[in-house]
C-alpha cells in the first residue's frame, strides 16, 4: 500500500516535471538532473568502475536527454527512458575507448595502470582471504563485454526485473535472460581464474 502510494506520487512529480519542461521552464531541466544524476552516475560507475569515465558518461547522458526531451512521448516511463539512454551511451563510449586503446602504447599504459591498481598489501589480504571480494567483482564486471555487462548490472546490482530490463534495452525478455546468463558465466570464470592465480 505504502509503495503504491509513493509510486503514484513519483508519477505525479514526473508528470509535473515533464509539463514544466514542455512549457520551456529553464529550471525544470536542472530539477530533472538533480533528480536522476545519482542513478545515472551509479550505473555509469558500475559500468566503467572509473570516476572520470563515469562523470563523462553521465554528462553525455544528460546532454542527450536535454536534446531529446522534446521528442519524449511518454510511451515508457521517464526513468526507463533515461536508463535506456544511459545503457546505450555507456556501450557507445566503451566501444570508443576500446578503439582508442588499440595502439601498442595505450596497451602498455593500460597494463601498467592495471598493475598499479593492486597494492602489495591488498594482494596479501586477498591471498589471506582467498575469496571473492567487492573490489574484485566490480573490476571484473567493468571488463565484461558491453552487451553482457549492462544486463548483469541492471539485474544483479540494481535489482531490476527481466521485464524492465527488456523494456530498457528494447530487446525480447529471452535475449535479456541469455545475455544475463552468459554475462554471469563470464564473470564467474573470470573470478575463478583470479582466485586460482592468487592461490598459486
Amino acid at each position: 500500500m505504502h509503495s503504491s502510494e509513493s509510486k503514484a506520487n513519483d508519477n505525479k512529480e514526473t508528470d509535473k516535471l515533464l509539463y514544466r519542461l514542455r512549457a520551456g521552464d529553464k529550471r525544470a531541466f536542472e530539477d530533472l538532473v538533480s533528480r536522476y544524476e545519482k542513478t545515472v552516475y551509479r550505473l555509469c560507475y558500475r559500468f566503467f568502475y572509473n570516476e572520470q569515465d563515469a562523470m563523462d558518461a553521465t554528462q553525455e547522458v544528460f546532454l542527450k536527454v536535454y536534446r531529446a526531451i522534446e521528442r519524449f512521448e511518454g510511451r515508457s516511463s521517464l526513468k526507463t527512458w533515461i536508463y535506456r539512454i544511459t545503457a546505450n551511451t555507456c556501450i557507445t563510449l566503451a566501444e570508443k575507448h576500446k578503439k582508442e586503446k588499440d595502439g601498442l602504447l595505450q596497451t602498455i599504459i593500460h597494463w601498467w595502470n592495471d598493475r598499479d591498481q593492486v597494492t602489495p598489501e591488498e594482494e596479501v589480504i586477498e591471498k589471506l582471504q582467498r575469496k571473492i571480494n567487492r573490489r574484485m567483482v566490480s573490476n571484473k564486471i567493468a571488463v565484461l563485454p558491453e552487451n553482457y555487462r549492462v544486463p548483469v548490472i541492471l539485474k544483479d546490482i540494481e535489482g531490476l526485473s527481466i521485464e524492465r530490463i527488456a523494456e530498457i534495452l528494447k530487446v525480447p525478455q529471452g535475449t535479456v535472460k541469455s545475455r544475463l546468463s552468459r554475462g554471469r558465466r563470464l564473470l564467474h570464470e573470470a573470478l575463478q581464474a583470479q582466485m586460482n592465480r592468487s592461490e598459486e
Partner: protein
Amino acid sequence: MKKCGRYLDYMELSGDVTCSQWQDELLHARRCPDCAHDMKIRTELLNICSKLEEPEYPLELHGYIMAGIKAGSNGANEVPSLIDSLFDKFLRPVEFSMSLATIVVIAFLLTLEFQPAEINQPRRSYVTTTSEQAEPKQNLVAISELDEVSGKDVQNFLQRLAEYRQHHPEIDHPGPRTSYRPPVRLVSDGQ
C-alpha cells in the same frame, strides 16, 4: 583432469526449469566437488553484487553536468534569428571586400620605394658674421627682380663683376681656408 561444468551449463540454460530438474541439479552439485564449488562462488557472487556499496558521488557532479549541457546547447542547438541571418548575409560580402581592399593597399604600399625628404635648411653657427647677415637680403632682392632683368642690366652686372675681380684677385686664387678670419662682433662690443 577436466573440471565438471554441469552446474554452470545448467545455469546458463536459464529457461523454464521444472522443480524436479532443479532438484536433480542440486543433488548433483552436492556430490560433485567442482559443481559445489561453482555453486558456492555463484551464490557468493550474486550476494556481493546485490550488496555492492553505492559509489561516492563527486561533489562537482551536478556542476559538471550542467556545464556540459550549457556548452552543448550553446554550440549545436542555437538557431540564429531571421535578423541575425540577414545581417550575416549582408555583412559577409562587406567584410570580405574590406579585407581584400586592406590587403591590396598594404601590397601597394610595400611596392613603393621609401625616399626621405631632403632637408636644405642652412646650418647656423653660434657666431654670426655681419656679411652673412647682409647677404640674404641682397639675394632676396635679386631673385624678386629676375623677371625684370634686361640685357643692359646683365651687361652692367658683368662689368661690375669684372671690376670686383680686379679689386679682389683672391676670388680666382683662394688661399688656404684656415687663414680666413671673418670679422667677429661680440655681444659685448656694442656696449
